[in-house]
């Protein structure tokens, strides 16, 4: 396999929309959607004579992201203009940061697909404004500019080319997403474009030290397409090189439908963005105290939570990894354990049942519709013997779909309360024993399997509500008589 002769080198430029209330340079709302051009003002529409004023929250959020990814924070930074013409860019320049980004030289720890710990270095994080959107008329009457998104704050997180496979790239991006969610600087909704990545891919012969020529795929907004696109692009590059060709450095467009990359149209000669410091804005100067305050205000990050779960709750490494993999899991976990005091069962339920349901529904953890308290109640019901774990699965399904989220109410409505009354169960036991003399005889003859059959019959009789431990105990007692 020629592909095995090559090493894959990937770097990601992750763009993340910050969840500040207002835009980066004016006071328009950042809310997603809305009728075209309703979330804008003379400033973000670039009316002649308007001026930008930097939203301080944007700096704060970017510094948070920097600290959470182990970056150094610039005490002295600035905004630069990146000049180019495009209809979605109303000023004909994007205010970004060129040579003095807010954050630099950080890293994120991941565990890759082979289970190895790896440090992915971050070159820089800078702040910039998003562009508007072009809506192309389906009847061919032209294109329409919607500037609602113009001026929404972004951070761009640029990794070093440290990633070696599509899977690793996915793991890194998931980790980044999880961190950004934990520190609450972005909702990271990929389907709304608030988290997207430009992916740089190159290949080189194994053992080579020089990087190969890279291609860049812009604006990838799902994990699935990132993985597919990287794999496609690696195969394509291997084929080109194996056939004696050369990779051209170019920007590609990934087409999710055909599963192929295409060179971007109308990219002329290499763009010269003519970066220069924006004279409308003043230098961004941050004090040590400011940075310390932000550092102290950060919520507990996944790494530290993981350690806590293993130390305090005795979770397995695997369970702790899984639970801390998402802020939503982890917060749900913390709330649930508060109620049920059973971290092991809570972890298991997240890892098995909840993850499975989300997977079936093709949803992310942020869409879990019930609270941690409600999850805790469910586990408490199992622990108290009020319901069996089989019923618990059914309750969980209900909690995802039904309006009622309280497991106590659900079992009441559905009549799923476990029968733990000894007298009632004894009645059932006797009834089953009477009806199945052959099985009683088999059991007495040493065939233990017969007990299973009898318990099954009793469960059937009680529609699964009988307390299984009690049922077992009473059968054995009766059979020994």
């Amino acid at each position: 396999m020629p592909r095995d002769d090559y090493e894959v080198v990937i770097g990601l430029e992750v763009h993340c929309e910050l969840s500040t209330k207002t835009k980066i340079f004016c006071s328009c709302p950042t809310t997603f959607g809305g009728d075209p051009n309703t979330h804008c003002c003379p400033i973000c529409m670039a009316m002649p004579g308007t001026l930008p004023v930097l939203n301080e929250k944007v700096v704060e959020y970017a510094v948070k992201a920097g600290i959470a990814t182990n970056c150094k924070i610039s005490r002295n930074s600035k905004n630069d203009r990146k000049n180019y013409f495009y209809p979605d860019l109303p000023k004909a320049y994007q205010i970004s940061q060129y040579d003095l980004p807010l954050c630099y030289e950080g890293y994120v720890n991941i565990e890759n697909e082979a289970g190895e710990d790896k440090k992915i270095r971050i070159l820089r994080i800078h702040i910039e404004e998003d562009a508007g959107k072009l809506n192309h008329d389906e009847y061919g009457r032209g294109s329409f500019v919607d500037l609602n998104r113009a001026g929404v704050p972004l951070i761009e997180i640029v990794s070093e080319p440290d990633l070696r496979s599509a899977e690793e790239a996915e793991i890194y991006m998931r980790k980044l997403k999880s961190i950004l969610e934990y520190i609450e600087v972005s909702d990271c909704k990929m389907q709304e474009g608030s988290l997207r990545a430009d992916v740089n891919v190159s290949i080189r012969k194994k053992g080579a030290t020089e990087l190969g020529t890279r291609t860049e795929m812009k604006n990838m907004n799902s994990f699935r397409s990132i993985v597919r696109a990287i794999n496609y692009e690696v195969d394509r590059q291997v084929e080109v090189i194996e056939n004696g060709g050369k990779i051209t450095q170019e920007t590609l467009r990934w087409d999710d439908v055909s599963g192929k990359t295409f060179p971007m149209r109308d990219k002329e000669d290499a763009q010269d963005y003519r970066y220069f410091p924006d004279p409308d804005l003043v230098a961004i100067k941050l004090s040590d105290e400011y940075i310390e305050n932000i550092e102290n205000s950060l919520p507990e990050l996944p790494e530290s939570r993981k350690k806590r779960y293993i130390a305090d709750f005795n979770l397995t490494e695997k369970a702790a990894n899984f639970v801390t993999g998402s802020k939503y899991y982890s917060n749900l976990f913390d709330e649930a354990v508060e109620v049920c005091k059973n971290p092991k069962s809570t972890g298991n339920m997240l890892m098995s049942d909840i993850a499975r349901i989300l997977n079936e529904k093709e949803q992310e953890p942020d869409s879990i519709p019930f609270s941690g308290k409600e999850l805790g109640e469910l586990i408490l019901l199992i622990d108290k013997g009020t319901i069996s774990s089989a019923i618990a699965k059914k309750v969980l399904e209900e909690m995802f779909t039904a309006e009622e989220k309280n497991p106590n109410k659900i079992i009441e409505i559905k009549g799923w309360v476990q029968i733990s009354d000894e007298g009632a169960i004894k009645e059932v036991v006797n009834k089953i024993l009477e009806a199945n003399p052959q099985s009683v005889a088999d059991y007495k003859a040493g065939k233990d399997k017969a007990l299973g059959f009898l318990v099954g019959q009793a469960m059937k009789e009680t529609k699964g509500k009988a307390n299984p431990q009690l049922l077992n105990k009473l059968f054995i007692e009766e059979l020994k008589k």
Partner: protein
Amino acid sequence: MHNEGKESDNMELYEYTVHELVEMLEKGETTSEEITKSYFKRIKEKDPEIKAYISTMEESAIEKAKEVDEARRAGKNVGKLAGIPIGIKDNICITGTRTTCSSKMLENFVSPYNATVIEKLNDEGLIYLGKTNLDEFAMGSSTENSAFFTTSNPWDLDRVPGGSSGGSAAVVSADLAPWSLGSDTGGSIRQPASLCGIVGLKPTYGLVSRYGLVAYASSLDQIGPLTKDVTDCAILLNLIAGHDEKDSTSMDLEKKDYTKSLVNDVKGMKIGLPKEYISEGVSEEVKNAILEVAKKYEELGASVEECSLDIVKYALPVYYIIADAEASSNLGRFDGIRYGYRSEKFDDLKDIYKNSRSEGFGPEVKRRILLGTYVLSSGYYDAYYKKAQKVRTVIKNAYDELFKKYDLLLTPTSPTTAFKIGEKCNNPVEMYLADICTVPVNIAGLPGMSIPYKLDSNGLPIGIQLIGKAFDEETIFRAGYTLEQNIGFRKDNKPTFKKG
């Protein structure tokens, strides 16, 4: 006609300064309506010769004047300056009115918002007479770069009024407005003020909000007053100065009352006379005028000393690199997409950009966009833009050094008096030299005022420039006021409206 009381019985309302009009309004000797109508009468008579206004707002102005008069009669709390008219340079945005920047690109552009200075003037109840002509996007020194017409100098109709705020200077000089606002990036207030025989001030960078001033060069632009005398200049600066949270480059300083600096006394003041400003390129008459003023200040009790500011020779090239670089980016938004001129000839997006900008901009604007694009291009950035920024710092430091010794610097405003229309428009470099005395002040971000001193042998005004420390407009006002009180230029000289 109104002529009660005042010392000059035959004066028309449009001839008074603003502080005189305010007095008359306070005494009930006139009304805002009378004043405003007097100006529109004058505009109808004289503007066809001067061609200083791009648009006038007679209807809304008179309506507003009547409202103010009504309020004043009813004893309502109206400001002292309520009902005083003003002319506004047509690169400052007023809601619902055209802001053309004298460009075909914005010929039909109606601003959806007010500049901060306009908000401030609205708060005081001022009345807009109209929008004044300028060199396209404030790029020029004569108004000849206006896409619409060239304004004439009221002292000689065959000559330029200076620029780029030529319209704003001409309206004040020709009594078509009692005062006006202009903008100054490299001399655009002071040079036309000098050529038209009026007072013009470029405030310290950061003193007046730029929000709503259509940007030419963001790090150099400042809005400032053009007035009949130094007193009016202080009054108007009081109105427009101050921090604006919409402009990050505006400074948050304690509010000052500049009229307190209108004191006829310069005793003990130390004035520097940089020799580089009165060397080659400066006409003999201008040079002599500066030396006369220096002597006058000495007579009045100031000390005047020749000093050197050698670095100033680099100011012009530094200016044309930085200003053009910023302009090339600032003017990118005029792309034919959202507003402004769009070419009718296009097949694709690139055509829209190319044709709209080729047809919408005039030659000087294109020249500066090309130069600015060039100096920012990769491979040239360090050699031009970055180096120019370094020299800019050196120039600033050189001024700082001088201001350790002096309170003020005295220089010419313009190397010559008004030149003939057409004389320099085919030679951009010669035109650029018209700003040689004013540009260094913008580079250093300092305040500078031009004050009319005398007429030259052709009967054209010569202005002198006073340069102060950053945010020390007070010293300029004090020295300017003192000079004005002791020379009486305005009393003795009136524009002649002569031809040739």
